[in-house]
């Protein structure tokens, strides 16, 4: 497999605060990667750099061999951890926007996902609940046949039933040659679907390993290793 994402000596700071420290990562296509760490570990910053929202950093970030720009953005489907659409937008308008802007967008998939998630094509976002807005953004993100999916905290703040639906939808929609990076601190909910895991702590990569190999090496689940690395106590 090719390294579709190559990150070399990446450093990022906000003013005097170092957020990412000498991050080095190579990620292959066809994998589901969990980007795990507590709040403030730098997960969202790393994802925002890959998606092109943060352009001031040190080091090298390549997507499919090219620096961040128009071409990398065409390959990446990004689901942020915030509601970023204007409240007046409807699924119909978003459908039209994505049709025009993304060559890999499949309107049919979007309509199917709307139906599955019980969302109305003409309903403006302002009339949707928080959970519905999250599903709406997820549906748009997954309706692209992208090479890379960057999914930031998709299951934080939603009820367990919705978590299952979200994970099931992601797994049921993406194409298998794609790379999926799912950022989360709720590792137990997604452990079963991960191929690889990255632990970020205070901006540094503590661990990047195949999940099966990690379980075999430590004799523990990824969640248990996670708790140990971050010194979290079991509930």
């Amino acid at each position, binding site marked *: 497999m090719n390294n579709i994402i190559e990150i070399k000596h990446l450093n990022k700071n*906000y*003013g005097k605060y170092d957020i990412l420290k000498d991050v080095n990562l190579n990620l292959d296509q066809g994998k589901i990667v969990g980007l795990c760490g507590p709040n403030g570990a730098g997960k969202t910053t790393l994802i*925002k750099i890959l*998606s*092109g*929202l*943060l*352009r*001031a950093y040190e080091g090298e970030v390549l997507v499919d061999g090219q620096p961040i*720009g*128009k*071409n990398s*953005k*065409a390959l*990446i489907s*990004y689901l*942020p951890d*915030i*509601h*970023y*659409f*204007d409240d*007046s937008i409807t699924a119909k*308008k978003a459908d*039209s*926007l994505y049709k*025009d*802007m*993304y060559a890999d967008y499949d309107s049919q998939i979007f309509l199917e996902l709307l139906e599955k998630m019980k969302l109305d094509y003409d309903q403006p976002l302002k009339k949707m609940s928080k959970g519905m807005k999250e599903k709406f953004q997820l549906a748009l993100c997954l309706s692209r046949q992208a090479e890379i999916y960057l999914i930031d905290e998709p299951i934080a703040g939603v009820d367990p039933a919705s978590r299952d639906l979200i994970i099931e939808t992601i797994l049921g929609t993406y194409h298998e040659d794609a790379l999926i990076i799912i950022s989360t601190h709720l590792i137990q909910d997604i452990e079963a679907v991960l191929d690889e895991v990255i632990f970020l702590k205070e901006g540094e990569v503590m661990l990047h390993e195949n999940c099966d190999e990690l379980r075999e090496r430590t004799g523990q689940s990824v969640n248990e290793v996670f708790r140990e690395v971050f010194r979290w106590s079991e509930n």
Partner: protein
Amino acid sequence: MVGKLIKHEFLDSRKSFMPVIGLIFGSTLVLTIFVKTSLQNNSMAFVNSILLLIFFGMSVAIAVMSLMAMIDLLYKSIYNKNGYRLFTLPVKSWEIVAAKIIVTFIWGIIIGLITFITFTIFLVIVTNGADTVKLIGSLMSYVISELELRFIAASLISFISSNIITITILLFVGSMMNSAYVQNRRGLKTFILYLVITSIVTRITAGFTLNQNILDIIFQETVIINPGILEGFDPLVDGWHHLFTINTWVDGMQVMLKVAFLELIISGLFVFGTIWFWDNKLEVID
């Protein structure tokens, strides 16, 4: 791709500009009622005062809302949570800049046309005459015939350059204040820097235009000495030249073109700066 960006920028910005258009129609309606009641009934002084007050209030609202709509289009729709959508689109930064400039111009033209049309309708209603349209048409034909083609072209270039510089300053300042160099109070800092840069640019360009007349409207001496001569005057029959003529000054036109050229060069630098900041220092934070 620029065409598709323009389409979506235009559709998205409707919610900011449509209220301005609504207010133009509304204020013209209020003005029409005011003039009609003033002409027909002097005993409605109180109502007329209220109508006039409403009209001025709406005029101020048009100015304020136009400014807000422009800020929405050239700043708010670019940064904070809107940046998540805009800067993840597979387009180059220059395409975003081009789309923003073109859409701002399109709205300027739409609002200008609507203002002209509503004002014409207002004149037709208050004068009770279909001849008003002919009168306006003949006045415009006369003005255009009095101006040389090169003067019209120079005025158009000057209009475009002065608008482009306003747009590009705002884009540039926004890109600088939403970069890694600025971590907080970005909106306020953008506003302050915009005022500073605008005042500097205005001082530079104003240095060229001092004491330079571009055109003179000269009313006929007989009209000034004896305004009574206008009784029974019909410009459609007698011609506007009996009322006034227009003189254009080549020196003034050349200065106007030099200023326009300078504004376009400065705008080019601001565009370059905006693209550089977006490509190298952008920080979209919510």
